[in-house]
């Protein structure tokens, strides 16, 4: 409170570290969702809105990864 700049800087450094950690975790998460036994939960014959469940699942995760990567790239590019 007496010195508002100090905690702000420390928080920013901390936040940046968190973002970097997240950037490292994202591909691992992607690998877990798309190339681990986890995927078999959705590899069933079901349909949603007339679309096969595996199709929806894979493209859904894929889209999520693209959006997350975009957000991450923005955050990482911040000074």
């Amino acid at each position, binding site marked *: 409170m007496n010195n508002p700049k100090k905690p702000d800087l420390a928080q920013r450094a901390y936040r940046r570290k968190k973002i970097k950690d997240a*950037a490292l975790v994202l591909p691992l998460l992607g690998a877990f969702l798309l190339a681990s036994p986890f995927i078999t939960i959705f590899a069933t014959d079901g349909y949603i809105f007339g679309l096969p469940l*595996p199709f929806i699942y894979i493209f859904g995760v894929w889209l999520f990864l693209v959006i997350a990567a975009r957000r991450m790239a923005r955050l990482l*590019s911040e000074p």
Partner: protein
Amino acid sequence: MLSFNALLAVSLGYVVMLFGIAFWAEHRANAGRLGWLRSPFVYTLSISVYCTAWTFYGAVGSAARNGLEFITIYLGPTLVFIGWWWLLRKLLRVGRAQRITSIADLISSRYGKSTTLAVLVTLLAVIGSTPYIALQLQSITLSFSVFAEDGGNANYTAFWVAAGLAVFTIVFGTRNVDANERHHGVVTAIAIEAIVKLLALLAVGIFVVWGFAGGLPEIFAMADENMLRTEKIFTSRWITLTFLSAAAIITLPRMFQVMVVENADEKHLATASWAFPGYLLLISLFVLPIAIAGNALMPAGANPDLYVLTVPLSQGRETLALLAFLGGFSSATSMVVIAAIALSTMVSNHIITPLWLSLSPSRTATSGDIRSVLLVSRRLSIAGILLLGYFYFRITGGSAALASIGLIAFAGTSQIMPSLLGGLFWRGATRSGALVGISAGFLVWAYTLFLPSFEGAFLLSDSLIENGPFGIAALRPYALFGLGDYDPLVHSMFWSMTINVFLFVTISLLSTPRPLERIQASQFVDVFRLNKDIGGYLVSRTATSEDLFTLAQRILGTNPAHRLFTDMASEQGKTSGLPDPTDDLVQRVERELAGSVGAASAHAMVSQIAGGGTVSVDELMKIADETAQIVEYSQQLENQSRRLEEAAHQLRHANTRLTELGAQKDAFLSQVSHELRTPMTSIRSFSEILRETDNIDSEQAQRFLGIIQEESQRLTRLLDEILDLSHLESGRGNLKVEDVNLGDVIERSINSTRGLIDESGVEIALNLPEKPIIVSASFDRLAQVFINLITNGIKYGRSKNPKITITARTVGKLAIVGIHDNGPGIPAKDFEKVFEKFSRLSESALAGSAGLGLPISREIMRNLDGNLTLEPSKNGAVFRVTLPLAKS
């Protein structure tokens, strides 16, 4: 139906357009107006060279055969790109810092600029890429044959396509000799092609889903059960393919070319990290619907690889089919162009140039322009590589399905990955490890996947593939060591990667890297930690600036070389002339050359001129790892500052002591003068009385003379004491030591002070053991000490009933004598002061004592190997005398 000639005209028109775009972009770049040519989206689009004709046609074919499996080919790259912060960022930084020209250059540079490794990786890349180029040619001829009823001659088409691509690549891919510079023309054309292929596939997809089937649910309703077999998802093949495609995007020569070499700005990678996965998502979105429609529409036996073309055609959509054709054409040509540039750089830098150098070692320094040699060799390489692809196409003649050729090529190039990752993250990876790992992995790949794929037509016969060499079942290519239940690709990847990684790691652990390797290792692994300015290493060489300039001129061209040397000269503070041949200059020249001819060749050339490019152990010590240096330095600093602090502490201590000593000396001097002055004054005054008084009676004269004598005796005594003390202090006392009975000494001392004792009325109590204590001492000196102590006790231990107790006992090999008075005692803080010269305690001191008694006594005891100390006590002062017992 379009005629073959019309199709030819369209393709030619398209090619002319590409030439135009490339030319325009090159022109713009030369004029310095880069603008959007350098935008991150152009970079992203150029990366989409990953999606070749194999993607365009083959993915649909693969989906028609194996359902969702085709997606794995895009999932791997997606994971690699969203994890760019881990790997690609480092790859890019290293590529930039070391001016890497190709994947072979990267591996070679990392492992000590090894020519052998560069050649190996180059050969591997050529072997892995040739089928792939053939695949592109095949897809183009196939797509031609779809349109042309008469078919045309497939070989003829393939040849002219290859020739056309060679011309394009040579014109726009070898404009600069610096392979590290951007090819704006090529990249822009590739970016346009990327848009065309995406639009084409989307257009076909949208037509199939909404134009033909009437919606996504409808198209999936058409799918036969085989296509959506869910148990096919997540099998060992699913994992292997994901891994394989992830490895491929890193190790494929053309991917390295567009991602690292053609990269204009590291920040573009941040955009590509999400935009490229997005592109892949879009391009694969409609693959499954198109495959479903193809299976539903086409007669059995139709080639699923061509559904992208045949489905629109079967619905009478010729324009759409033409767009699809151009999309496929774009995919194929962009791949071939980039692959040809990447491979020609590698072949020219790592095979032709070293050969040329070794054949004519003297030429480097003397002969003419190396640039033209380099350009010619690169152009010939491009033509050679395309010719090789063409011959491969002629020989195999489209035998295998597109997708399997692609996968086989992927598996081959992925053998580089362990050494690449190891090189980037593991400092201990060595050249031998990389060499053996890559070779072994490659051989296993060739034996278990590549050669059997010819189905007995090349090297391995049918029976060998079926039964193993000499009938040894354990060595069957598709079931090595009996592991036969797996898909051939999974099987091959498993064995080749296992053996590759195992040998790479084991041999790296067992071998010792050369100095240059170690330097490069830290340059690669610590690329983010190293300071930009300390990029190089010091190698003392004997190059002259003139030689280096000549070399640079021949390879970089006159103007760039001139600029480089002028820059260096001005950095060195010279206004004219060549810069000094410092290590810095040699490194800079080598790095610049590396941009043109690769690290290994540049190193060889500069070494030829500079003489002996190897680093000696001494030099290595100097360069030692930067971190190690810093650690060592900070430790030294720490040590030094600690030592300094200690020294300062000691100095402070010594200073205090000196000040004290100085004060004591002053006090001593004034004390001495004072002590001497008192007797001198009385001697002088009495002698003056005697001289000046005429009639003095003899009795009085006698008394005065007595005083004078007494005072002069006191003077002499005082001087004797001072002398004695100074002798004792300097250790020159030369005391005569003998066996002495302690009791006798104490008795003598009491007798000597009897007069004083009686006069003061002090009671003396003796407390000695019955058995006589024999000590080793000088009788007279020891008596002097006791006399002094007793006198002291009498003088200072004043009380109503003064009493002095003397006790003696033995402890071990020591005799201890205590002299205890019942006076006011001495405060503990004054214990040391007592033994200082002239420091009579407080003001109650008796006149006449020079205050040297105690210091002298202590010095005597110390000279006798004993000591004199004060003991803490509740009442009175306790002096303790310790001295050694006699030896016998």
